[in-house]
């Protein structure tokens, strides 16, 4: 029991990354009604990009920011060049494209970066020497890098909320998310907002991927699989159109994952639960929530017009 706080603190940083990637999913879903199945692999590609920039002598933090900027542009290009024309055909077409992108982007990383399969070293974004932590109580420590990730995500989230609530662009995005026709009739260029949604989501994903790589001290082709899974689980749990839901969902899942991974040694059933069952546990939680609230905890139920 003495370790509870420790596990929670550890879980918060991973959880904040899930929240971040989940936010990226929510931004696209709210703005366009599409699910970007390739969110994780686009983030992976950007993270490899950050590695590459860093490998050429640019300091890590600057590389990460630059990669996010390139991801921003890339996301907009993907929306304009692939998603928009596909969306004109059918929503089914968009699903196919994002699944194709999932595979293509993952493989592209493998093609462009030698040793991507085994992994490339990624520096830590925060001080992470063995003694870089904040001792909270006797046994509980909070490592600087975990604090750093959490704070970074909170800052990004805060900026996003400010953007949505206080700026004209944010208002336009909320308008398009709620009622695209009325948004057009109010003078909003919905196509530009759609592009912006994808661009922002790609940048957010890029930052998330870099944070993960920093925590893991490396990046490889499989890095984003479980992150995307848990992030999408978080978004599902919270409601695909709810930014607040993404945050709550992400943090909760991070903590649950941490508890499930660490506690079982004390539990009698520990042979069956363990490190890798976090996902199964998460899945069960989400299933139960969705049975009660099919649109997620904070999501708005879709009313179908017949």
């Amino acid at each position, binding site marked *: 029991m003495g370790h509870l706080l420790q596990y929670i603190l550890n879980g918060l940083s991973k959880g904040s990354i899930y929240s971040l990637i989940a936010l990226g999913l929510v931004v696209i879903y709210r703005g366009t009604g599409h699910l970007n199945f390739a969110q994780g692999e686009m983030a992976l590609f950007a993270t490899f990009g950050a590695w590459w920039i860093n490998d050429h002598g640019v300091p890590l933090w600057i590389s990460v920011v630059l990669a996010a900027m390139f991801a921003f542009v890339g996301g907009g290009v993907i929306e304009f060049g692939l998603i928009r024309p596909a969306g004109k055909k059918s929503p089914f077409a968009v699903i196919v494209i994002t699944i194709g992108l999932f595979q293509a982007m993952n493989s592209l990383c493998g093609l462009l970066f030698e040793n991507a399969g085994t992994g490339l070293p990624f520096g830590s974004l925060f001080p992470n020497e063995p003694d870089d932590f904040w001792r909270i109580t006797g046994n509980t420590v909070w490592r600087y890098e975990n604090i750093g990730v959490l704070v970074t995500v909170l800052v990004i989230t805060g900026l996003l909320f400010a953007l949505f609530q206080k700026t*004209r662009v944010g*208002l*336009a995005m*909320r*308008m398009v*998310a*709620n*009622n695209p*026709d*009325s*948004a*057009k*009739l*109010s*003078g*909003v*260029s*919905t196509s530009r907002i759609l592009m912006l949604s994808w661009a922002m989501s790609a940048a957010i994903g890029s930052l998330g991927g870099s944070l993960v790589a920093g925590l893991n001290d490396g990046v490889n082709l499989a890095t984003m699989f479980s992150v995307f899974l848990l992030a999408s689980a978080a978004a599902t749990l919270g409601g695909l159109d709810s930014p607040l839901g993404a945050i709550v969902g992400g943090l909760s899942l991070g903590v649950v994952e941490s508890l499930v991974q660490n506690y079982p040694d004390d539990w009698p059933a520990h042979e069956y639960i363990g490190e890798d069952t976090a996902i199964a546990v998460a899945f069960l939680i989400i299933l139960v929530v969705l049975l009660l609230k099919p649109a997620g905890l904070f999501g*708005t139920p879709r009313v179908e017009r017949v």
Partner: protein
Amino acid sequence: MSAAHALLDVRGLVAGYGAVQVLHGLDMSVNDGEVAVILGANGAGKTTTMRAISGMIQRSGTITFDGQDISRTAPNDIVRLGVAQVPQGRGTFTDLSVSDNLRAGAYTRTGAKATGIDADMREWYEIFPRLHERRDQKAGSLSGGEQQMLAISRALMSKPRLLLCDEPSLGLAPIITQELFAILGRLNSERGLSILIVEQNANLAVKIAHSVFVLETGSIVASGTAEEIAGNDSVRKAYLGY
């Protein structure tokens, strides 16, 4: 009365949805400073006409606004030129607060034009005190009549020269509808706002109208001043109910 100048002029408008053509060459116009009403039954093409004018659907033919051809213009640019629409069903931003809805209406006012936004919002709050009461509430929680007032205010926040109203009385109680048309009439007489209204139930609309058009299965079958149309027996029986 000075020679009427057509603020909006529509010639040979053809529009539809996919393979279904709804409008077959529609001709009508709205004079500057006047109220025009299009009467039509269900399926006649009223909403299609409004959507076509605002650029929301594919259309062919000629639409001229204040001398400028807007037949190929994008919807957001048409708003910037001075045409605002209150769509059918009001099109409220249900998840946004009342005040955000008003701000949404003012979206096109950037730069110098942005200075009057707060003052205009206060003005609408004075005209519709209930909106002021509910200014931080989600717009979706307002009643039908309140949403209609909000929709009109929202449309007018962009300071348009022409206001399009698609079946504004739909779903409203008779008393609210009377209030509504009184307000529209005042907006026209006091501010010189040009208004185009499409309606099914026409009594109140025709009372504030300068010109009336009758739309039947995609084209105008009769037009004239309000008095002329009210004097037309068959139209009166079909659309005005007496």
